[in-house]
């Protein structure tokens, strides 16, 4: 039992504790703040930059070092560095404020990018820029939830944004061919899902008994599944559906005059 005096005490500052329970025992290691996440993501490759010391503790704040027997029984090795790596990879830790902040920031931007990619200004048929979307998101006080996927949140944001700015999901351009027999009936069902019909074509081939209705139209991407299902079920596999473009946007630069 060493004597607990200030002279032989090593004080650690900037400690982030990573804990792990294994074999019924609790193990802790002392790391630097803001470094554990970088290590996990692979950006930090130098272990010495992450670990304050490669001792494994039972309790870091009290300075109680884990017993060798416990370590070898729990991890099956006595190599401290190896054990530290295991704890680093799988242990639980409190995410520091800067780590969380940068993560949220990144997600926020990611959501904005997704929104900007999916939406257009309905007046000009041109996309909004990411920075504008970000600002609009801040205006409606949108807060990022770390445990939801960015895509999911982006879809929610679009709905909220529609109240403050002129924004709309970019339409998909579809083209479907329907057999004439079911065509009329199906068209009525499809009508509420379709935004605009650009082109409608009846085509009768005398040799064959088929009659096609070809439609090129724009729809909201949210309805795609429904339309797909309708056509599939109603025509019993004779209608075809084709995506001409995922996003209907203006192309090229335009000079304002």
């Amino acid at each position, binding site marked *: 039992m060493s004597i607990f005096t200030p002279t032989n005490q090593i004080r650690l500052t*900037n400690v982030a504790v990573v804990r792990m329970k294994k074999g019924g025992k609790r193990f802790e290691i002392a790391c*630097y*703040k*803001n*470094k554990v*996440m*970088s290590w996990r*993501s*692979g*950006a*930090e*490759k*130098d272990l010495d*930059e*992450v670990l304050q010391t490669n001792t494994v503790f039972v309790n870091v704040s009290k300075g109680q070092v884990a017993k060798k027997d416990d370590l070898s029984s729990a991890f099956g090795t006595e190599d401290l560095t190896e054990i530290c790596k295991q704890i680093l990879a799988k242990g639980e830790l409190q995410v520091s404020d*800067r780590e969380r902040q940068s993560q949220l920031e*990144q*997600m926020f*931007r*990611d*959501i904005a*990018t997704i929104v900007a990619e999916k939406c*257009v*200004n309905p*007046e000009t048929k*041109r*996309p*909004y*820029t*990411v*920075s*504008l*979307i970000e*600002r609009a998101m801040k*205006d409606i006080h949108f807060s990022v939830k770390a445990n939801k996927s960015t895509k999911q949140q982006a879809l929610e944001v679009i709905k909220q944004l529609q109240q*403050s*700015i002129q924004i709309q999901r970019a339409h998909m351009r579809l083209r479907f*061919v329907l057999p004439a027999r079911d065509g009329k009936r199906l068209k009525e069902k499809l009508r509420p899902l379709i935004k605009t019909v650009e082109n409608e074509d009846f*085509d009768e*081939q005398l*040799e*064959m*008994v*088929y009659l096609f209705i070809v439609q090129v139209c724009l729809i909201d991407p949210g309805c795609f599944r429904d339309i*797909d299902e309708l056509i*599939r079920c109603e*025509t*019993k*596999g*004779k*209608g075809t559906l084709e*995506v001409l473009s995922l996003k209907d*946007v*203006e*192309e090229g*630069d*335009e*000079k*304002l*005059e």
Partner: protein
Amino acid sequence: MVLHLEKIIALQKKTSCIRNLCILAHVDHGKTTLADSLVASNGIISSRLAGKLRYLDSREDEQIRGITMKSSAISLHYTTGNEYLINLIDSPGHVDFSSEVSTAVRLCDGAIIVVDAVEGVCPQTQVVLRQAWLENIRPVLVINKIDRLIVELKLTSQEAFTHLQKILEQVNAVTGSLFTSKVLEERAEKDAEAQSSCTENSSADQVYDWSAGLEETDDSDLYFSPDRGNVVFASAIDGWGFRIHQFAEMYSQKMGIRSSVLLKTLWGDFYLNAKAQKIMKGAQSKGKKPLFVQLVLDNIWSMYDAVVTRRDKEKVEKMVTSLGLKVMSRDLRHSDPKVLLSAICSQWLPVSQAVLSMVCEKLPCPAEISAERVEKLMSVGARRFDSLPEKTQELKKAFLDCSADDTAPVIVFVSKMFAVDSKALPQNKQRPLTQEEISQRRELARQRHAERQAANQSAESPRSADAGGTSTPAGPAGNALCAQTEALSVKAAVEEESKEHFVAFARVYSGIIRKGQKVFVLGPKYNPSLALRLPEGCSVADVLPSIPHMACCTVDRLYLLMGRELEDLDEVPSGNVLGIGGMEEFILKSATISTSPACPPFTPLSFEATPIVRVAVEPKHPSEMPKLVRGMRLLNQADPCAEVLIQETGEHVLVTAGEVHLQRCLDDLRERFAKIEISVSEPIIPFRETVIRPPKMDMVNEDLGKQQKVAVIHQVKEEQMKIPEGVQVDSTGLVTLTTSNKMATVGVRAIPLPEEVTRLLEDNVELIRTMEQFSLFAWEDKTLDINQKILENIQDFKVKLESNLQGHKWRGAVEHIWAFGPRRFGPNILLNNIEGYRRPSVWQCLEREKETERAEIRDFDNSIVSGFQLATLSGPMCEEPLMGVCFSVETWDMKISVPQAQQDSVDEDSQPSEPNNDDQSERSDMHETSSNRSRSRAEAAGGSVDCYGPFSGQLIAAMKDTCRYAFQAKPQRLMAAMYTCEIMATAEVLGRMYAVLSKREGRVLQEEMKEGTDMFIIKAVLPVAESFGFADEIRKRTSGLASPQLVFSHWEVIGSDPFWVPTTEEEYLHFGEKADSANQALKYRNAVRRRKGLYVEEKLVEHAEKQRTLSKNK
């Protein structure tokens, strides 16, 4: 003022008494100050304030910054025996606003060039001299700020004389070089013509003429010389200026020498021999005082000495009396000697007198317009004057006559549109009401009041029945209400009127323009020959058939431009500068107005500065987008040099001539046009991703392979980007992946396309699109008619592709092209290298006639293509589109057994999808496949919905991922957009310009000298990513002597590998362990990823030990 206006209107009719002129100079050489003293001479502003007020700088930011930003006109009246009307246009001197100078110069017949006596000829001076020269207008010179030579530099009069001589030489040198380059050019043209005729005649005895024609052409009248009377020496701030005429006349009386002799000898190397009372030559060699110093400069020097330096009151008084001036005692006592000085000088040698008399004598009146200039104005672009329609050529006479007859055709040129606050328009100005109007209004108000009261009464009558007393207070209440509504309506009216009004800045070249007249407005691209094809007798009033760039409108309002004020006019005869209101709907930036449809549009203004500074503009509040767009439209109209555009990314980009110009445009947007808060940022820079062949050299130019790699100490480079399970990568880069339901396996390899192929694909986007459309129609089994020409083009394209894709690796590749991408027409190729799968080729439009063996389309063919499209749309490096990559699908195995199983459930009338009989016609075959496909598609979607979603979707995802991994298996590179940059620079700034170029990763392609000048033309390429602020930096570093022009040219692979880490000993030595200094590609990639919110491999904290240990609240 009213009297003044009437006089001006009267004078406008006398063409010979009109002088249209502008003031041009380098920035801060005193244009506006000079204009101030000229304005003061007309009593519009006090002469005391002249030089301080800067009357023509009416914008707030102009006053704050102290520079002029727009050209503005004012009409002045000047009398010397004859009465003259002077239309003076003040112009900005800053490089960024040289477009404003162009608009001013176009409307004038003459120009006053102002040169600072201390600074001499500056870059902008050269530019304006060139502009004046190009527009064929006659310049006169004012050497300004001579007081600085005395007070600041403390030169003696002798030194000042040599200094002035030098400046004059410099100016003349510039004019001379302009002249020579023009003569040489003409000569070159003549030579070319002669040569062509020579070859025709094939004359053997050709005598070469070495004289270059310079000697034959007389250029003496081009130069500035005081004895010719086109130079004024002045100090506009102190209010004095003179020509040597004045002194010559003064001394000829005193000394008894003829004034003509004095005039010739006063400037130059002459001195006065006091004994002989003779003027002799050679003052310099004999060490005598030149005449100019003795008679002119010494006087001025001694006055400055007495008034400013020594403040000798007695001497001043003596001087004042000897000059016969009257100076107010208030000025004499004033503590600031400058006040006294300007009081004396402005009486003794008033600058306005000197300048205006010179202008009237030396500059031409509008009627003296030269035929050469007319032809130049009328012939647009490269068209020769002779090639214009006959009727148009006839108009030349009208130009030359410049007559203000009613019969003469009206020709007006609008050089720019400027925005005016509606409050400044004369019709909205507040003026005292006449007695009649007052009584009228009173009557109206009374009526309204009565009505209101009646209404109140009737409304309240039931209530008043209840309580009798209420009706009495209703009167005042109703009155108040009435007043309120009135105020409201007034407010509404004000709001409506506070819209920006545009006034056209114009000049009449022929005829009289009247209010209410119907005229044609001809846009810059109008072609007179189109209108002339119309039947005869088609008058202005007729409703126009739609001729491009032509509109018909009524002249709404005419204004006299008086600096910041406008005066209403009813008619303006030819030769005058004027403002036209109500034209904003017809004119964008410049136009020609005429009563004759034969009139050609004037040549577009030659801008010395083209817009190059690009920024992205956004509203602070996203909901204000429409306001911003409207504001930008207005700005575009109001500014001759600004450009606005919406990019494909949705960014609103503003392109301006320079940083100062940008600042002004933004201020205008914020405060006048959009009236919203805006934010400005660097525009988004696009990149492309590509793969290359494995490089042979490493970063320190050592041969790879020969060296042994040293063990990397602690950076173990993870092999191939953590590829997840289920993806197999073999050593040649073939990547195989199975869909999540284990039903299908795809194997793809990424191959870099040769550069020529990429370019070929980019150039032929339209053709690819047509081909795509054709196959789409064939898919639906219809035919799209493509005309023969396009078919030939496609054939040509195919041949070219084949010739570029040589070598065994590409054998048969062209025939096997499956699709292009992204968006079906991009510069990436999907190849079908699957054994045993023949599908209709993309070239089927070419093979329409040939009855080739029928190819079958496999099920889910479309999913593979979609996967490819998605993969090429955003690459793995930073989600930017791919370019120049070929994905070759080598294996595609389907374990799906669904088609067979479901066959029975499918409609009875569709034929089984067995391989078709050969004797069936092609047509029914096609039917078969299409119906077949539609069915199987539905089956697949219906039959294979497992826990992973529809199968087609899975295949798309699998294909996309496979392509991405295949891409990553190869050495990846970023491609940057490049500008070609053309820079004109003088020899002395070449070095500094190269420094800027190399700092921004630019590369010089060629450099050549322009003939006849000392200008170099340098061609370079520069990455778009580095171009932000480039123009400004190069201008700053070369003090404006080099001006770049940027045009997008091509995509270029960035040499460095974004994933590179040092692996060999040399690389370690050279780049260090982290190697983060030199990697441009990594820098770009991280910037893009960060912007998009993608994961960037960066440490939050670089050094763990160096963190701030304090907690937040300490």
